[in-house]
């Protein structure tokens, strides 16, 4: 009987704060798919700089915010959001998408952090390290004029590669007159980032040679996408071409 218990707890916290919940909560209905927090819970502020700002520098709104946070309920911060200076939300999102069966340790060690007890030490086990080493090799092999053009920061390469893979316009199946038509439709930023990451991961998983490890394949694909080449970019261009071809169906969109 967990659902009614949850509802009554929430009802109690509602009454305690006197804040009405924005979402209509009908009696007898419990929401399962959304967050277990009721609407008055605020997101946690992880950024250390926010709290270190001296009082003099803050505007009226920020001072009000700070005072308000002292009284409001705040959600618990997830374990993956650290206050570390080296944290990157895009890399965390990508690692989560690569994760299978909840094995975050494996996903993280493939992407960034190496596991300490790994037996095979002479190949780089992480994508970012592999990207970095390949770029260093290219750097040392290049002449001094070309060296300035070679990017060695794995994070900029990663961000730029995913940005290059994002489609500008997407296709959505719309039912009209008994048939599904692929209608070109503008995509939100979130959807575009998701599609780029999804394409990258599926490409690496499916077209990987049998004995090649994931970090090596991923680093290869990332470097190719960085230079606007490779299968993921081709898939993006295919999507654009299809959207261009189905231009006439754009009227089927009603939003």
């Amino acid at each position: 009987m967990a659902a009614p218990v949850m509802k009554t707890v929430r009802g109690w916290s509602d009454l305690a704060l006197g804040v009405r919940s924005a979402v209509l909560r009908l009696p007898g209905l419990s929401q399962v798919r959304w967050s277990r927090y009721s609407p008055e819970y605020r997101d946690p502020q992880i950024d250390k700089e926010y709290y270190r700002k001296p009082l003099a520098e803050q505007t009226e709104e920020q001072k009000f915010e700070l005072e308000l946070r002292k009284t409001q309920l705040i959600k618990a911060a997830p374990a993956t959001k650290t206050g570390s200076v080296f944290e990157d939300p895009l890399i965390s999102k990508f690692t989560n998408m690569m994760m299978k069966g909840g094995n975050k340790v494996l996903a993280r060690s493939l992407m960034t952090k190496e596991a300490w007890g790994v037996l095979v030490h002479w190949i780089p086990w992480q994508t970012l390290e592999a990207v970095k080493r390949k770029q260093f090799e290219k750097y040392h092999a290049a002449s001094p004029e070309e060296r300035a053009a070679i990017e060695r920061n794995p994070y900029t390469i990663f961000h730029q590669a995913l940005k290059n893979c994002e489609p500008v316009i997407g296709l959505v199946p719309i039912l009209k007159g008994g048939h599904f038509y692929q209608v070109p439709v503008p995509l939100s930023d979130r959807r575009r980032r998701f599609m780029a990451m999804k394409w990258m991961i599926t490409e690496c998983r499916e077209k990987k040679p049998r004995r090649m490890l994931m970090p090596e394949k991923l680093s290869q694909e990332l470097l190719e996408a960085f230079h606007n080449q490779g299968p993921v970019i081709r898939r993006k261009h295919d999507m654009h071409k299809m959207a261009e071809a189905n231009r006439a169906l754009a009227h089927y969109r009603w939003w």
Partner: protein
Amino acid sequence: MLKGMRRLISKVHKAKHEEQHEGQHYSLPLQDMKTIFPHGLPPRFVMQMKTFNEACLMVRKPALELLHHLKNTNFDHPAVRYVLYGEKGTGKTLSLCHIIHFCAKQDWLILHIPDGHLWVKNCQDLLQSTYNKQRFDQPLEASVWLKNFKTANERFLSQIKIQEKYVWNKRESVEKGSLLGEVVEQGITRVRNATDAVGIVLKELKRQSSLGIFRLLVAVDGVNALWGRTTLKREDKSPIAPEELALIYNLRKMVKNDWHGGAIVLTLSQTGSLFKPRRACLPQELLGKEGFDALDPFIPILVSNYNPKEFESCIQYYLENSWLQHEKAHTEEGKKELLFLSNANPGQLERLCAYL
């Protein structure tokens, strides 16, 4: 001074390393690395060498101490045993490599066993030894080691002559007075006799180092493998003790201090060890009673994590090579975080900086 830590590039005179050079890096010529270290460097260091196109070692206290002792050795006294021990990732193997490079530059003969643990586990072909029916031969490991030994000590092989006649089988034998190089060749070409060739090399070198023609450095990494247990089994699935392996038996004789004219530098290692708990790093724990008694007396040298000066120097080295590419890594916040995450452990720091 922590801020202005520069790298000291001294290509020629390793002998000039004094205490004031502590914490600074010096680079080794890559050609030397190929001849002196065909085996024995930690794999991540080899990757780093390949990426940076240079090999740089940091001068640290344990190595300096050892160098000081080696410079003042009395070659008429029995060989002194030095044991490098410490936590995982603190730099024992690299300190050993530093010592080996120094001795190679001083024209010593280097007997370097890269990892004792490789000889007591995962052996595909174990043969019964022809020399002694109780013992076992490991042809593959022995021949690989002989090949690397040849690369490291080319010129000595044509100078040293053996002082006894050895018979390989009915048709082949090697006469007294022929070169050591011949024995090594025989071991490499005839893989069946490789283990016996190794045994002969060790015996001859021990006998002749006392004569004073050359100075011998015995460097063994993972010496606790010699007195532990093996994972190898006979055909009837009964376990083999280390002394029943001919390679280990001969190596134990080498590590005993009944010869003079050189030094013995040993490293303990928990990483490849068998049946030892992960936290064990002290000599008593890793060597066991038998090993400790066999090595007693020895000079223990603790290799610990970086002190603040060395940590700063390491970060500066990575920044100079542009290995730390993350924008936040240059800031004080980033350095504090690296110190916290790695706890100044050299191995951990290297792995952290790899993806930043």
